[in-house]
């Protein structure tokens, strides 16, 4: 209640239209859409870089790029895919779905939400613009290791600034998500009644807040080493470049789980819907997610077995890494148990979810192989590692994003997508993805190093197969864009519940979900 003579709140008449609507919006659905569109644009940008990399690697020798530009492409592909595609896409899902799943009218801090998003395009623009600066973009790998990163040109400073901005955006987004989940649950939604997607995001946001200062500090120390004469990581001045790796991976290993936990959440929503059974072992899923998050803080040095460390440390990091397989195994078991004897149908979201379970497990197993210190010493910096993390991040995170988009798109747009086109997209993606990345295991085992534009003749065939797969996978994403645009434009009207087996508050709303929802909190029994 406020005195209208001197106080006006947000009851302003007439929303801004056109570009101003999107610049000033504080609506969680608008901001969710912005995140998802940004991620899609960045996916095509970083995907194009990947295709250029694969085109160069089609045969030995240098064809399309020079070594420095090749290194710029691999670095920017990694940075953009992680910070510009996967993370923003999951933030988009969180913005759309968390309030709808909890019966909340919006995020806890809507204006901060707007800020958190609009920082991202600025950072993305800086990263992309660095290609046109003297010396080109950063070329030392997405891990930004010194001394290479200390020696580069102006684009390295710009990248540090972009990383800071993206970090700030992530922190604001995470604080918003944590406060929304904790404070805006409708009456009756206790923590252990929350949908698993919300749980995974709560834990993801916790990880982000816990690790972001480490990244911010690390890149700031790089910046001061580069410009202000400090020697944190400069061996010539008494610094320790290996310490950067420890600091970086202390952030970046939890970051891997930041990239995959929301994917677990999406898949945990989809499988019960299309198996028409409740999720098997809900509580164990929550505890497994939390266990993975906790363990992620004590495994960082498995990325650095080759830098040299005491045998006891190698053993510790080896066994702690293997321990992560236990809660991950619990999850895979529960997804399979949910499907067991379910009344299953295989719409596109379910196909992507099943592909996720199968292929992510392959990525997990190759991770276990890499966790064995003596094996890792052989395979470090080979294509085996590239195969491993692409099985985790492409068939893991990206496939979960595809699954989530197909699953909730009818709720967002009010129209059903074309199942035929969706299935074409699925099969081309899953076949293309395996053609690209499976041969990389063999290349790595045979000793082909990563991040090198040229290679010995014996690696040619597998590289050619991978390149063909990359183009199939890459161009099939145009089909995905076509599906989205077609669904937004029109199509069969979606029902409120959309999927027969769907459970949860978001399915009680009309399709498309109205601009304002749950202004009066529902009571959940």
């Amino acid at each position, binding site marked *: 209640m406020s005195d*209208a003579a001197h106080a006006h709140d947000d009851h302003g008449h007439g929303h801004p239209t056109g570009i101003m609507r999107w610049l000033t919006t504080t609506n969680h659905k608008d901001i969710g859409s912005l995140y998802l569109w940004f991620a899609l644009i960045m996916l095509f940008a970083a995907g194009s870089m990947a295709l250029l990399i694969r085109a160069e690697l089609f045969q030995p020798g240098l064809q399309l790029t020079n070594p420095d530009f090749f290194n710029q492409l691999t670095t920017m592909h990694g940075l953009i895919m992680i910070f510009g595609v996967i993370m923003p896409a999951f933030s988009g899902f969180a913005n759309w779905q968390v309030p709808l799943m909890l019966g909340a009218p919006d995020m806890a801090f809507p204006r901060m939400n707007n800020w958190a998003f609009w920082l991202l395009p600025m950072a993305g623009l800086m990263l992309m613009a660095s290609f046109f600066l003297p010396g080109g973009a950063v070329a030392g790998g997405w891990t930004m290791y010194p001394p290479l990163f200390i020696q580069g040109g102006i684009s390295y400073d710009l990248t540090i600034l972009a990383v800071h901005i993206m970090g700030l955006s992530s922190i604001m987004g995470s*604080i918003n998500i944590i406060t929304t989940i904790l404070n805006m649950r409708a*009456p009756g939604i206790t923590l252990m009644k929350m949908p698993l997607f919300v749980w995974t995001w709560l834990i993801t946001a916790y990880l982000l*807040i816990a690790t972001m*200062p480490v990244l911010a500090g690390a890149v700031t120390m790089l910046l001061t080493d580069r410009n202000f004469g400090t020697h944190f990581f400069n061996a010539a001045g008494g610094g320790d470049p290996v310490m950067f790796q420890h600091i970086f991976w202390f952030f970046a290993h939890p970051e891997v789980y930041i990239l995959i936990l929301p994917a677990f959440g999406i898949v945990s929503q989809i499988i019960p819907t299309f198996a028409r059974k409740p999720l098997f072992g809900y509580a164990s899923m929550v505890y497994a997610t939390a266990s993975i998050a906790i363990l992620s803080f004590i495994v960082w040095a498995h990325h650095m077995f080759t830098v040299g460390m005491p045998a006891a440390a190698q053993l510790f990091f080896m066994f702690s890494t293997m321990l992560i397989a236990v809660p991950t195994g619990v999850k895979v078991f529960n997804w399979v148990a949910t499907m067991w004897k379910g009344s299953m149908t295989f719409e596109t979201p379910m196909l992507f979810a099943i592909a996720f379970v199968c292929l992510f497990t392959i990525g997990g197993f190759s991770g276990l192989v890499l966790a064995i210190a003596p094996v890792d010493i052989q395979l470090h910096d080979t294509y085996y590692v590239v195969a491993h993390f692409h099985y985790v991040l492409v068939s893991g995170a990206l496939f979960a994003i595809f699954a989530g988009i197909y699953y909730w798109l009818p709720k967002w747009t009010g129209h059903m997508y074309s199942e035929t086109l969706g299935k074409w997209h699925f099969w081309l993606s899953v076949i293309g993805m395996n053609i690209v990345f499976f041969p990389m295991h063999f290349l790595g085992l045979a000793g082909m190093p990563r991040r090198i534009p040229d290679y010995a003749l014996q690696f040619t065939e597998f590289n050619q197969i991978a390149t063909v797969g990359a183009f199939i996978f890459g161009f099939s994403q145009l089909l995905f864009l076509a599906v989205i645009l077609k669904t937004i434009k029109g199509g069969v009207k979606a029902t409120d519940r959309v999927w027969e087996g769907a459970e949860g508050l978001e399915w009680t709303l009309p399709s498309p979900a109205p601009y304002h929802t749950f202004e*009066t*909190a529902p009571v959940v029994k």
Partner: protein
Amino acid sequence: MQQVKLDDCEGGSAGAFVFQSRPNHSLTRTQERLVFWSLAVVCFATAISFAYLGYWLILPFAGLEIGLLAWAFEALRRRAGDYETLMIDGDAVVLEWHCGTRDGRREMNRQWARVVCDCRSPGRNCRLSLSSHGRATEVGQYLSDEARLQLAVTLRSRLQG
């Protein structure tokens, strides 16, 4: 717009109409402490460990971030006690509200109070206020448009009766 907990009840003296609404607030003090301190301890333990090794620049970022988190929880706590109460008792119309750190109270005479509802259709930011002697006081800020329209109808009937 916040969520609402709506208590439409008869209260005050016999026959008085009391309507109270407040935003939904599911965060308990224990949860808040648990989340805040667990994050603060992890962040500072990490930052202090690295600072001890000479890499002190993580520490200010940890401080800034935990400061932002503290501000966010503090902002939520400030809003936790927000409410609006509207009471019609005989000829007295009493509005009371607590919003953040501000408290307010206004009394009107039932004969002079008018319901002003500016709403083309639900979902278009309807505004509801009570006006008397040329001064309007907005009510129902925690309500949805539909609930505001419903309240407007109830208030008109109560003020006429």
